[in-house]
């Protein structure tokens, strides 16, 4: 470790870092703007100036940029020297020349890195008397507010947006002091990760638009550590609340999961918490079909009464916590507990779980995905199903660049140099999908194939690598694999075989078990030699994997329940946080609900299932309750209530536990707190034993005190509810978690799972997170949040290795190619809208498109229809708008999974298509509004 001298003090620092990082890691405050721990240095802002001396005799020294200066043994620097300080102050003064007088009306104020740095360098008085430059703002869509006057031209935004996230529609324009960061013309920012601009930009140029219109300063937000419920990646978040409304979601740093970035579904999709569809009171359906509000006690009595008599069945939910699902399973018994997936998904998620648990390959976290040097994606459009993984993959293709840099002994933080060196050289990324995906621009090759061919391609690659079921592979290679791509299969094989850290990605979205198996075969074929092989199988929802572990492979599915109900074997059905109409055919769900004499639904938002229930109990959403979720990498993570449930809402586990107690079920007598349920579940289900380690229990104290949800400057405490009563009540005590609904306590050095907000003296912005890290950009001091349940690297705690029931049935189609007159339905999920809850967020509503069907031009022409026309799918399954997509595999009909009007469509079903005669074209559509760019190979 090199020893450097800063202002006369010797410090040991880590080799390979730059001086700025090292200073921050040492706890020394050195101002900066353009450096970002995840994006490295470019030396653009000149803010991190320090004086470097040649040797001990040198008294003059010279000014260097901290972020561009590698630390080397014996180097002598001065941070505090007058020259460096004057330089840094002059830099801020020059950045401020044109800065508007906006802080009071700027949504960055109070958490503005520019404010912090200005105070840090001591700049106070303007000397410049000239006029200030001004800019016009742009409309950048419903999510992000633009206020260009506040820019300090640090280039972080374009470096993030273009270089890091692969966006194309934001750039630096014009020159000298005319420079402008925006789009070529007004319009919605196209990147799925645009929201991170809010946190990346050190000023108030890019701010969260919904926050700007219902603003609360950072110091007034009550926050708690939370986990995104948008998809199965399980990014860590810090939602902020004030006056009972969720105001915004910020990233919570987790070195192994989301790092510094979220996707826009996660950042802007939590607004459903404030939805006016949120249920507030229990309701009992009366004879006339209307609901009567009940008080919670009466509701509970009724629920207990109905659950005590007759035969009870329960349907859990992959979007509800492990604990709530566990209690429901206890209530109805394992044999009567359906996990709440659709039938196909249930098979596939169990299969994905089994394949990952059994695989010798590593099940990677997101940070490890970034280290992959060759990637094969089979069938899954990760940008739209597990978005944060796509952002990680965009970093993985840069490993080629880092290799080249290592040869030239360039440090990894030399961002501009490395990009210049590598130009367009990337690590191999192969995508086999039914049509274009947003990652295509960084892919070595994209193959657009029908699902069966994707599986066959995977098998061919596995066979080529000397693994898998080679006979099946050869058969398929002859049959389903078009001759044209046999060469591509060989190229993929070669690339993966040559990699040190190959990664195979597949997922459940495309509905094919064969693809999942093929991916696992490729991974296991790669698991030889010194390679670190990774296998990542995406599942759809926040707790899909946890639900599959909890329910086990033998759990009944929805069809089984419906058959039992129709046979009169179910009297009462309890549905937990699940809109069944998204899980099965309308007719089937209608039949299920109609056959049960009592339907009890616990949910947070009004939906078709709550409307069909006899008794509805309002369940608290993720921001009002605690729970454990198991992410797609098998990481159990805890989310904590940000604020207390409003109205009569209660966490689902509270309702269920109270009901079990009311029923005098002795097994719940020892359960009093949330933690007791977690422990009981861990003890009951061996595969879930690790969930207790997801976060400390409620007895955890940080040096004798709880962890405060409110920052030390939380204001208005004696006025907030003075309109209701001037007598301030005692702050409610949190009896379930180690966090407190107050500003008293200690937010420092606690376990990573308990970080509610970041702030440090002098660092009001989110940049203060480095004060919570072991080193700048490193993991949190208190350890990384979450507990892995699937042991990475296949330590093989095989809990069940039996084949998953009904696996083959899921593939309701042979490997054979297109059948004349029938198209195979393939899901085409969208980041906005395919997920049930985030689609209800007002901020995203505008971006959610209506359902659609995608066909390749030849198929569309054969039907005599074009983009914008209506298509009738099957026998009145759906009528949707057509989008002609040049890249769509022939014989496949993509549908916007989860979007309005697609409820009856099931992945891989063969359906007929015809022109919908009564369809009204939307105005303003032209034939060129279609997907897929040029340059992608279309098979």
């Amino acid at each position, binding site marked *: 470790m090199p020893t450097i001298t800063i202002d006369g003090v010797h410090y040991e620092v880590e080799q390979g870092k730059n001086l700025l990082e090292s200073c921050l890691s040492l706890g020394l405050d050195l101002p900066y703007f353009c450096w970002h721990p995840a994006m490295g240095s470019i030396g653009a802002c000149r803010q991190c100036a320090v004086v470097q001396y040649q040797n001990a005799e040198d008294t003059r020294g010279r000014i260097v940029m901290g972020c561009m200066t590698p630390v080397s043994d014996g180097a002598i620097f001065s941070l505090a020297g007058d020259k460096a300080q004057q330089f840094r102050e002059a830099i801020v003064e020059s950045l401020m020349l044109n800065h508007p007088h906006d802080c009071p009306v700027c949504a960055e104020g*109070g958490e503005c890195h520019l404010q912090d740095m200005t105070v840090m360098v001591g700049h106070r008085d303007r000397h410049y008397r000239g006029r200030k430059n001004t800019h016009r703002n742009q409309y950048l869509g419903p999510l992000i507010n633009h206020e260009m006057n506040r820019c300090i031209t640090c280039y972080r935004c374009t470096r993030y947006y273009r270089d890091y996230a692969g966006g194309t529609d934001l750039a630096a324009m014009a020159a000298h002091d005319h420079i402008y960061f925006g789009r070529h013309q007004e319009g919605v920012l196209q990147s799925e990760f645009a929201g991170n601009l809010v946190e990346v930009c050190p000023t108030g140029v890019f701010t969260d638009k919904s926050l700007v219109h219902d603003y609360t300063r950072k110091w007034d937000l009550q926050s708690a550590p939370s986990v995104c419920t948008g998809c199965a990646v399980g990014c860590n978040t810090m939602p902020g609340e004030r006056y009972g409304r969720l105001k915004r979601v910020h990233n919570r740093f987790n070195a192994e999961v989301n790092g510094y970035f979220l996707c826009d579904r996660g950042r802007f999709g939590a607004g459903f918490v404030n939805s006016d569809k949120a249920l507030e009171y229990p309701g009992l359906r009366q004879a006339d079909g209307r609901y009567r509000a009940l008080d919670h006690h009466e509701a509970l009595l009724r629920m207990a009464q109905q659950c005590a008599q007759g035969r009870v069945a329960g349907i859990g939910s992959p979007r509800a916590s492990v604990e709530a699902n566990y209690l429901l399973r206890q209530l109805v018994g394992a044999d009567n507990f359906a996990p709440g997936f659709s039938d196909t998904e249930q098979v596939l998620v169990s299969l994905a779980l089994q394949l990952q648990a059994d695989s010798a390959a590593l099940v990677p976290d997101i940070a490890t995905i970034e280290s992959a040097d060759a990637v094969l994606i089979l069938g899954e459009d990760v940008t739209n199903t597990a978005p944060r993984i796509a952002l990680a993959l965009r970093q993985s293709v840069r490993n080629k660049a880092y290799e080249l840099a290592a040869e030239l002994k360039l440090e990894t933080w030399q961002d501009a140099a490395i990009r210049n060196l590598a130009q367009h050289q990337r690590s191999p990324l192969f995508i086999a999908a039914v049509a274009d995906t947003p990652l295509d621009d960084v892919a070595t090759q994209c193959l657009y194939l029908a699902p069966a061919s994707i599986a066959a391609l995977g098998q061919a690659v596995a066979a080529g690598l000397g693994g898998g079921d080679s006979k099946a592979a050869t058969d398929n290679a002859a049959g389903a694999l078009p001759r044209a791509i046999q060469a591509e299969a060989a190229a993929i094989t070669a690339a993966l075989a040559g990699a040190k850290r190959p990664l195979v990605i597949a997922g459940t979205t495309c509905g094919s078990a064969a693809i999942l198996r093929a991916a696992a075969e490729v991974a296991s074929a790669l698991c030889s030699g010194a390679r670190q092989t990774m296998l990542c199988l995406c599942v759809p929802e926040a707790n899909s994997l946890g639900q599959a572990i909890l329910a086990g492979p033998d759990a009944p599915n929805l069809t089984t329940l419906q058959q039992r109900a129709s046979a009169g074997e179910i009297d009462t059905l309890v549905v937990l946080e699940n809109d069944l109409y998204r899980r099965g055919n309308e007719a089937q769900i209608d039949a299920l609900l109609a056959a049960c004499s009592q339907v009890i639904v616990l949910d947070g938002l009004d939906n078709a299932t709550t409307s069909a229930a006899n008794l509805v109990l309002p369940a608290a959403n993720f921001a009002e309750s605690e729970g454990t979720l198991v992410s797609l990498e098998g990481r159990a993570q805890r989310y904590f209530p940000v604020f207390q449930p409003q109205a009569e809402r209660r966490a689902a586990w509270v309702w269920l536990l109270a009901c079990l107690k009311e029923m005098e079920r002795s097994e719940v007598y020892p359960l009093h707190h949330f933690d007791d349920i977690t422990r009981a579940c861990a003890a009951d289900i061996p595969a879930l034993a690790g969930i207790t380690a997801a976060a400390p229990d409620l007895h955890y104290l940080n040096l004798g005190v709880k962890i405060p949800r409110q920052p030390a400057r939380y204001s208005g405490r004696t006025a907030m509810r003075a309109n209701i009563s001037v007598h301030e009540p005692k702050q409610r005590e949190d009896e379930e978690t180690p966090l407190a609904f107050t500003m008293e306590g200690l937010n420092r050095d606690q376990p990573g799972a308990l970080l509610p907000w970041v702030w440090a003296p002098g660092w009001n912005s989110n940049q203060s997170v480095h004060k919570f890290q072991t080193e700048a950009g490193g993991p949190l001091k208190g350890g990384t949040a979450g507990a892995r349940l699937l042991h990475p690297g296949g330590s093989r705690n095989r809990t069940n290795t039996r084949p998953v029931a009904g696996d083959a049935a899921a593939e309701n189609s042979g490997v054979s190619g297109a059948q004349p007159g029938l198209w195979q339905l393939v899901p085409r999920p969208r980041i906005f809208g395919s997920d049930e809850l985030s689609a209800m967020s007002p901020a995203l509503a505008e971006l959610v498109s209506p359902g659609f069907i995608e066909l390749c031009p030849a198929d569309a022409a054969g039907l005599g229809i074009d983009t914008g026309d209506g298509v009738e799918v099957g026998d009145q399954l759906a009528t949707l708008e057509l989008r002609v997509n040049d890249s769509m595999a022939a014989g496949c009909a993509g549908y916007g999974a989860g979007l309005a009007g697609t409820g009856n469509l099931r992945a891989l079903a063969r359906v007929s298509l015809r022109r919908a005669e009564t369809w009204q074209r939307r105005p303003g559509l032209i034939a060129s509004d279609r997907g897929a760019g040029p340059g992608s190979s279309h098979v």
Partner: protein
Amino acid sequence: MLSSLTSQLRTIWTILQHSFTKAETVQYPEQMPYLAPRYRGRIVLTKDPDGEERCVACNLCAVACPVDCIALQQAVKEDGRWYPEFFRINFSRCIMCGMCEEACPTNAIQLTPDFEMCEYDRSNMVYEKEHLQIDGTGKYHDYNFYRVSGLAIKGKDKGQASNEAPPIDVKSLLP
């Protein structure tokens, strides 16, 4: 002995003199005392010289308040101005320290020389915006935040605030 006697006599003499000075006691409320304009009494919200609400709901007064007795919520008007949707001061907590006035960047919140705020019911001490807002500019007559700020509002476009150059044409190639 002698000196203590002198001291006693002098004291008696001084007290005697007081019998003929003017009484300091004021017959309040019949007689109103003079309070300087900058006396720190009841708080008001003022308007700018153009008659628009001055407060921009920046929350600085609330965070400056040592007893946390100010609560408000920001909202945005049609014309682009930020304003408080509600603004509440719990005067039963207020200690008239004037920190809010110090903190206010728009001169909106001002303390006035009025201290007569007794109530039998504490809840009457909770003032909402309609009780706080006055029609005039208070002590500071000329300041109008939006004339200085870079935020565009209806009637004041980018480049029209004081000391601002007209908006840059990004597409221009001129230096």
